[in-house]
């Protein structure tokens, strides 16, 4: 027991001691919070920043010498240097970690460029010249014009494929279905035009293949890159700060709009971003009416009995159930039992391959809705309790029934409370990963849950999620610094998404509060 004279301090000193103690822990908390934000922010933004390219000469631990173009990173220990390089052996990039004395000369290489590929790979090399069909080799100053030319050809091929070849192919398969004769004139005509368009595509493709970029590595070995594979060529070391920022913004654009490439270590995160937002959106649509109706029953209609109290306590306790439990429940009940039954009833011709009986975005949203339901119920009940009794009586006295009173008076006044619940639910659902991996979120989904095919919203499809992407990417991080920083960028994005969703909900709540001010 502390006596009042503890530590020999007087009253004022004791008080200031208590203040400093509590303030100390508050500041620890702040420091933790700020460092998380700074770490995620810095590492996330670093992913987009073009790193300068150096020509590095050095010795391997076994004594053999090497010369490579590389991005150079000093390891946090200060003793080691990490190189991300390209050479004739590993043209598409590799990394190595060396001690400082193994690295010899390090010179900036202004001639060399970072060449990014459509498929997410990259090469660090010095571009030498461009091969263009039926012309002499072109200098590098023409590179943008040539890339536009190639892009034009690609667009033409694309157009022929989608506008001409695909419809003809479709028509031909229709003929097949109706058992039209092989030598029916209409069919022969179609086949002829199909062959003709195919020839044109092939011709364009072979022209495109003739566009090549010749590059050399630091050891002067040459390497040929088809121009059609190239996404961008940046002479990083020559860029001014302004131009570097331009690169950063175009990289952010790619990051937000492109699909992941090279096993989620490169490219963009658009499907994951889309999946996350869509899942949260579906979850909100499901959980809001459920939670609000349940809360209305509990607070307005349920008799004041021990059973009601028990239900209320269990609802609050449900908020503390580990999320993976909900994941297992979602898999066992929603996916297998519910989805399985739906398949038997509605999609029996597709069996044994499951339609709704496999993990998908709808089940994920439903599982998340169950997970966030207690939050919404508790907050809504809190909001309902705050509605002044006088207003309800006033409404009854004007001839309103209980239901009319709830709809016209109680719910509008409780709406800020309901919004608070929805905000908390969104924040929880957007950040939750574990249960999603059981009920529908995958590392890579071939298609988005929304597309142009009927019924447009495919609730049975698996989807990608930022949290799952980060979790998946974290496994690569020990060997590959670049992909690790992509995960930091994804983290940053997830933070921003949650932040934006919250801000929207908070603004909405503020508006409702202002509108339905009471008292």
């Amino acid at each position, binding site marked *: 027991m502390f006596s009042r004279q503890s530590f020999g301090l007087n009253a004022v000193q004791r008080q200031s001691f208590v203040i400093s103690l509590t303030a100390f822990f508050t500041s620890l908390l702040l420091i933790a919070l700020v460092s998380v934000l700074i770490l995620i922010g810095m590492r996330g933004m670093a992913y987009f920043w073009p790193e300068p390219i150096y020509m590095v000469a050095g010795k391997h631990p076994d004594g053999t010498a090497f010369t490579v173009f590389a991005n150079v990173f000093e390891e946090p220990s200060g003793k080691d240097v990490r190189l991300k390089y390209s050479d004739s052996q590993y043209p598409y990039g590799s990394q190595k970690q060396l001690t400082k004395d193994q690295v010899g000369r390090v010179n900036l290489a202004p001639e060399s460029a970072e060449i990014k590929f459509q498929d997410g790979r990259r090469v660090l090399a010095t571009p030498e010249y461009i091969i263009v069909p039926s012309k002499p080799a072109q200098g590098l100053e023409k590179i943008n014009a040539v890339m536009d030319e190639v892009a034009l050809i690609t667009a033409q091929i694309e157009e022929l494929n989608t506008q001409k070849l695909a419809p003809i192919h479709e028509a031909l398969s229709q003929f097949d279905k109706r058992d039209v004769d092989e030598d029916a004139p209409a069919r022969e005509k179609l086949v002829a035009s199909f062959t003709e368009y195919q020839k044109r595509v092939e011709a364009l493709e072979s022209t495109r293949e003739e566009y090549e970029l010749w590059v050399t590595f630091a050891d002067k070995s040459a390497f040929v890159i088809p121009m059609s594979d190239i996404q961008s060529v940046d002479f990083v070391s020559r860029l001014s700060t302004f131009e570097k920022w331009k690169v950063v913004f175009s990289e952010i654009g790619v990051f937000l709009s492109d699909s992941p490439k090279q096993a989620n270590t490169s490219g963009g995160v658009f499907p994951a971003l889309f999946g996350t937002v869509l899942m949260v959106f579906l979850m909100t649509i499901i959980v809001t009416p459920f939670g609000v109706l349940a809360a209305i029953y509990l607070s307005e209609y349920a*008799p*004041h009995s021990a059973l009601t109290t028990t239900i209320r306590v269990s609802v609050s306790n449900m908020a503390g159930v580990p999320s993976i439990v909900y994941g297992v429940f979602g898999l066992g009940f929603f996916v297998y039992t519910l989805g399985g039954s739906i398949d038997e009833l509605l999609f029996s011709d597709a069996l044994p391959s499951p339609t709704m009986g496999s993990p998908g975005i709808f089940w994920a949203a439903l599982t998340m809705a169950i997970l966030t339901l207690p939050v919404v119920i508790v907050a809504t009940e809190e909001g309902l309790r705050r509605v*002044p009794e*006088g*207003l309800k*009586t*006033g*409404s*009854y*006295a*004007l*001839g*309103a*029934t209980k239901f*009319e009173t709830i709809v*016209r*008076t109680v719910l*509008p*006044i409780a709406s800020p409370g309901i919004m608070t619940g929805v905000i908390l639910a969104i924040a929880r659902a957007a950040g939750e990963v574990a249960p999603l991996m059981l009920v529908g979120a995958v590392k890579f989904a071939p298609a988005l849950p929304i597309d142009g095919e009927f019924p447009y919203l495919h609730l049975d499809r698996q989807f990608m999620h930022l949290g799952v992407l980060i979790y998946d990417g974290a496994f690569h991080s020990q060997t590959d610094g670049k992909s690790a920083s992509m995960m930091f960028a994804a983290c940053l994005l997830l933070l921003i998404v949650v932040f934006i969703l919250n801000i929207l909900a908070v603004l909405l709540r503020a508006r409702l509060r202002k*509108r*339905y*001010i*009471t*008292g």
Partner: protein
Amino acid sequence: MLKLFEHNTLNVDDISAEQTAVEVRNLNLWFGNKHVLNDISMRIPKNKITALIGQSGCGKSTLISCFNRLNDLYDGCKYNGEIIIDGRNINSRKINVSRLRTNVGMVFQRPNPFPMSIYENVCYGLKLQGVKVRRHLDDAVESALKQAALWDEVKDRLFESAHVLSGGQQQRLVIARALALKPDILLLDEPTSALDPLTTLFIEELMDSLKKQCTIIIVTHNMQQASRVSDYTAFFHQGRLIEYADSDTLFTMPEKKQTEDYITGRYG
């Protein structure tokens, strides 16, 4: 105190059935085991102001809440006996409570405007009844606000929140809200106890002018108010109707000792 209003009243025992707005017959009411109203019988006359006085907890507010069945909202409330309004016993199960409440308006102690615009507040009841035609609503809002003597003060800001109004204005708005339904009976449960004296006077004048169109039953703790505005006064004590008479008689020569003690302020 100056006698403000002329009263021309009958003896309570001479009120005929046609002149009766509310007839209470042997009303008993319990909250749980507590016997709140004990065998109340009285006739409340039409187009008059009847004041119910008595100590806090004597059951007068509970009694007027019986007239629009507001007591139904409370768990554990049981009652028997009859209350006849318009020739029908409103305590019967067959009564449409919503319709009863539109016919019997009520105003409470604290102004309770809804957190909506002034306009929306006044047409709340009408909209519940399914009135959708904008012109009808506009007319009803205007006439109700005029009856409640609020129109001139709010006509330029009908669509502002009702919470910008002062307490007295809010109370008149609540009265207008009830009047918009054209009730036959208006129940006022201590309508001025949260208001300042000047506003109180204003509301009292308003009551007098409303007498033409509806019967007013007011619960009040203010003796002067009861004697100023009411035609009839009933004194309650511990759930029983002790004395009921025209206000002049009751305040000048009460029959019962208890009444005299209460109105002269000797207890309560």
